[in-house]
């Protein structure tokens, strides 16, 4: 019997190890290929150059246009996801009666289950023409529409993590606030949200990280033109969309074109990894502990 237990324990441990090894492998590949890349393209040009044309005869390796595209789309997504996510979390946690919450929460989470490729075509074929009716200067490919759709996609992530954080605030605090004559809204905004601050911030940062790494929606609806701009109406290209674009063609392994995707991937990895670290740090640093 003990032998059996031992086997199970080892098996579980091995499963856990696989994910660690996978991570190590990915980082190793990224490091190796990026290193090869930077032997050809100087790091300074990569980080500060304003032209990104590695596939063309006159190759430039300035990643800023891709970074600008990524930040622009992510910022639009956050402008949609954070307020909507926070407000739905406040509603679900503070206002909704238990049966409404039981109904709404799964419905909201269905949004998270929709494949991103569907969101991509939804942005391209439905949202873009819709916005074009109001803003005629909007291009067929643009940052605005995929940004908005991505924001909608991220709402469940924000609302569910935020709601968890808010519901873990002890009821005593709410009752004290009500006893002082505060309304439900005052209680939510001035007592519950601040008390759940670390959890809420962690949720926000995870959402940003999700937006930065999102691939399919932008590859379909944002265009494939690296352009250093903050104009949400014109075609742009994000880091993830660039990686997809190169992978769809048939770039031979070992060429500089091929290595660009690892350099871009490395930058992306560092970005999302950094954001996740900040999220964890914030949560531990500002955690309000209620005994």
């Amino acid at each position, binding site marked *: 019997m003990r032998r059996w237990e031992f086997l199970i324990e080892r098996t579980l441990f091995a499963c856990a190890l696989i994910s660690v090894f996978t*991570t190590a492998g990915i980082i190793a590949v990224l490091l190796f290929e990026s290193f090869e890349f930077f032997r050809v393209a100087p790091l300074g040009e990569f980080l500060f150059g304003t*032209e990104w044309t590695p*596939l063309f005869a*006159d190759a430039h390796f300035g990643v800023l246009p891709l970074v600008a595209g990524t930040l622009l789309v992510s910022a639009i997504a956050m402008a949609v996801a954070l307020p909507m996510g926070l407000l739905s979390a406040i509603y679900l946690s503070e206002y909704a009666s238990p049966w409404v919450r039981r109904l709404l929460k799964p419905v909201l989470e269905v949004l998270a289950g929709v494949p991103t490729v569907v969101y991509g075509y939804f942005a391209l074929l439905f949202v873009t023409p819709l916005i074009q009716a109001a803003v005629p200067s909007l*291009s067929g*490919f643009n940052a605005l529409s995929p940004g908005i759709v991505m924001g909608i996609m991220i709402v469940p992530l924000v609302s569910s993590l935020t709601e968890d954080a808010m519901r873990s605030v002890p009821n005593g605090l709410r009752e004290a606030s009500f006893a002082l004559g505060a309304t439900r809204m005052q209680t939510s905004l001035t007592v519950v949200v601040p008390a759940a601050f670390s959890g809420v911030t962690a949720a926000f940062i995870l959402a940003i990280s999700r937006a930065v790494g999102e691939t399919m929606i932008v590859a379909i609806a944002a265009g*494939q033109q690296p352009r250093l701009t903050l104009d949400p109406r014109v075609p742009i290209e994000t880091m993830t969309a660039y990686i997809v674009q190169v*992978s769809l*063609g048939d770039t031979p392994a070992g060429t500089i074109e091929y290595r660009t995707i690892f350099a871009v991937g490395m930058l992306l990895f560092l970005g999302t990894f950094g954001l996740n670290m900040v999220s964890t740090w914030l949560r531990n640093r500002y955690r309000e502990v209620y005994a």
Partner: protein
Amino acid sequence: MGDLRKFAVAVVVASALLVAACGGRQEQSGESGGGTQLIRVDGSSTVFPITEAVAEEFQKKHTNVRVTVGISGTGGGFQKFCRGETDVSDASRPIKPVEVEACRKQGIEFIEIPVAYDGLVVVVNPKNNWVDHLTVAELKKMWAPEAQGKVTRWNQIRTSWPNRELHLFGAGVDSGTYDYFTEAIVGKEGASRGDFTSSEDDNVLVQGVSGDELALGFFGIAYYEQNRSRLKAVPIDDGKEANGKAPVAPSVEAVKNGTYQPLSRPLFIYVSKPAADRTHVRHFVDFYLTDGAALVDEVGYVSLGDEGYRLARDHFAGRVTGTVFAQGGSQVGITIEQLLARERK
């Protein structure tokens, strides 16, 4: 535990990217079992509509054969072809010497078969009311490498045009259409600006131009024919009197009589010789060169005529390998007649 979860999220994001990065590289290999024969075709998205239509009709008659048609672009297609991963390669330009060399190294001989003629169509959005025609020089000004980051507004092309942004959409660098267009317009194959929306998939370009008032793009005539209501074709003036003084609008007629220059070009399929010895591949190519002629017209390209397909069938039956385009790569200004003359030799 929480740290580990965040870490796992980062890993998932990164690995999803890697999977996306590697996905394009994985090929199905070999024949599938169960008596079903597989013919693998990949390459140009310009030739795709013809091959797709032929494959569909062919599979109706031969229910035990499955034909897969990919769109990696002409260059991408040849890379797979010369690694022996595909049986037939669609191409919108003749094979290049480096590609011939790559095939030779793998011991893959090929049969070159012209299947249709195409006119590359330069298109703008239907709402664009200022462009009436373009000269080759104006197109060059837009697309040349020097234009990068500098030529960004319509009034830089012609001063009477509006001072508004110019959004360019074009074939990606793996595409034979890109090679041909740069050769014909800029004068050097593979030389162009890099700051435009590029895709190997022409449907993406159609979508981009049809949704953007300030757009200009180019692709094969079939994609224009299928989307006439969403696009406006621009007549092209090559400045040569032999092809008529006025700008020539793209049409099947103009491609056929050789006046739509310099953007008319032949389209090809390349069949690997080992594959051609397989019965079902032979049947497929024969079908392509007989019943396929009608489909060429149907999808919007220009067929080579009875003699053209007879010559092509003779070539295939005689297993004539190699290319008649000794210099390789895109050749500008070849009319159907000249192409057939080369094939007759």
